[in-house]
């Protein structure tokens, strides 16, 4: 096990956390949003490693956000950790049921069914006037284990929490992805039936992947709800999921740090592009996606990885084909 990478991850997290904490308010906010989204993207990447593209990860993103908001408004839960935990529980329950159905499907069916599931939630939220219908509702500033930060401090606290959760998630996932358990995902992508022959259960593993992705995404959604102070049904709309898929492809699925880098790049470019040319933003996304598919099928991370002598070069050549 390579401890250098883990130390590197921690160091990077510390540097970014310090930068965001000391930097201007807009930077803190941008980084909070980017890292919260990166958690969702990690979920997408988990599934992508097994060859499955989820066009519906926004389902759990939205569940996390709404669970946090509803816990605050209706259950009187004002502590940020309890709010996030409720989101995780809700996501696990939904994923536990949906996973049973979804793990039977592959390829485009998986993509479409996940998309349809998130659209079901969107449809329900749009129609429920008690939850603010298409407007959603506001989420007030929560408490942190008894502290109640106000104004700029609240934004900083949300940022610190996001960074902490991301750091833990990155460390845990780095270990999981490099364990034999994590590597089976890639084996499933390459040849599911052989994995079956080896006496392992692809469906069981995909089910675990799906549940883990749901947990990560609900955390991301909850953090976004706390950071922006607002939730609305668009969180579950399928274009939101498309955005996550985009960030996942931008970063690549080969390293746990890739989604975070991609999310920062994405959020920074988006902030700039929406100001300068609001009508060309989607076109830029589409064009970048096509360029990525053509020239960087393994994402931005391959730019970093290419410079090192990779011990896994042989396996990389094999997986290149299915990287998309």
């Amino acid at each position, binding site marked *: 096990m390579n401890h250098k990478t883990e130390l590197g991850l921690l160091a990077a997290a510390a540097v970014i956390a310090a930068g965001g904490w000391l930097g201007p308010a807009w930077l803190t906010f941008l980084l909070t949003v980017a890292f919260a989204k990166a958690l969702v993207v990690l979920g997408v990447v988990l599934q992508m490693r097994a060859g499955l*593209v989820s066009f519906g990860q926004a389902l759990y993103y939205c569940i996390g956000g709404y669970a946090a908001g509803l816990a605050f408004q209706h259950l009187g839960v004002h502590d940020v950790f309890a709010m996030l935990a409720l989101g995780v529980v809700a996501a696990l329950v939904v994923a536990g049921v949906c996973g049973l*159905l979804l793990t039977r499907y592959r390829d485009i069916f998986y993509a*479409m069914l996940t998309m*349809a599931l998130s659209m079901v939630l969107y449809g329900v939220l749009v129609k429920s006037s008690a939850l603010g219908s298409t407007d959603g509702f506001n989420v007030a500033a929560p408490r942190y284990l008894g502290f109640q930060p106000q104004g700029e401090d609240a934004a900083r606290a949300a940022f610190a929490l996001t960074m902490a959760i991301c750091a833990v998630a990155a460390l845990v996932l780095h270990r999981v992805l490099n364990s034999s358990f994590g590597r089976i995902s890639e084996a499933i992508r390459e040849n599911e039936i052989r994995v079956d022959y080896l006496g392992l259960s692809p469906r069981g593993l995909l089910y675990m992947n799906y549940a883990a992705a749901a947990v990560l995404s609900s955390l991301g959604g909850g953090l976004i709800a706390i950071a922006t102070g607002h939730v609305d049904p668009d969180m579950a709309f399928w274009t939101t999921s498309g955005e996550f898929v985009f960030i996942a492809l931008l970063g690549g699925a080969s390293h746990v740090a890739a989604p975070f880098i991609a999310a920062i790049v994405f959020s920074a470019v988006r902030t700039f592009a929406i100001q300068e040319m609001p009508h060309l933003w989607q*076109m830029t996304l589409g064009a970048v996606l096509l360029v990525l*598919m053509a020239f960087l099928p393994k994402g931005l991370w391959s730019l970093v990885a290419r410079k090192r002598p990779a011990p896994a070069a042989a396996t990389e050549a094999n997986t290149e084909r299915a990287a998309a």
Partner: protein
Amino acid sequence: MTTFFAILIDASIYASWLFLVAAGLTVIYGVMRILNMAHGSFYAIGAYSAASLVGWFFSGEHGSPYWAYALLLVCAVVAGGITGLLLDQGLLRFLRGRDEILMVIVTYALLLILEDVVKLVWGVNPYLAYQPYRLLGQTSVAGALRFANYDLALVFVSLAVGAFAWWALNRTERGRLLRAVIHDREVATAMGMNVNAMFAATFVIGSVLGALAGALTAPAISVTPGIGIEIIVMAFAVVVVGGLGSIGGAAVGAVMVGLARSFAVHVAPQIELFVIYGVMFLVLALRPQGLFGQIQPRKI
């Protein structure tokens, strides 16, 4: 009893609309194995070009107002045909036979690009082209119910499109060749068929169908940005219920989803959107390949 009739007629109107929207999608998938996300854009492009041309037509004296219907068809063929041809020859031609999931992502990129192209060309203000809709008047059914004749005419248009597709596939030589390609692409190529040309033709036909759906819907709605993105998931649901790639399946899927939705609208309006996907999940849970889909053998 009135409600029953209302449900039935609403269902047939909605189902015929769904079939028009989904037909192009299923044709392209059936032949090319591309689940075309950009189908929503064809729909939007058809709707926008129809709305702007119909608006121009009624703004001056251009003869009998009934020419507007011909205009709708011409719009669909021209707008859909040009867009389809450009996309296929400009990009998809180079990606023949790639992974299905990769093609989903590529067409998703195309959808994003075309969304902004539509905004650049037509702006963000809504377009209204209600004249062809009003022109046909209304019909009273069973006393209390009133339906726009335009909507009822849509049922016949949809039936005609379906019948024509069936005839073209089953009773013409080109159609038979196309079915051979659907059945086995490699053998068809080995037999000397120009599969590449057939793919191009299929993509253009599919995009014309998508644009036609948009053009025919334009008079009934206000054409705004984002309409393409809204319908694409619904079209997926219909196509998946029937079995990807089967035109008959798309028709059955449209009828089932149409019935379920109009039932929901009249009886329990809160679950309207939910019920569409409910039908989809129910069918897929029982028959994963859809009602008329073929089971793909697992390859080792």
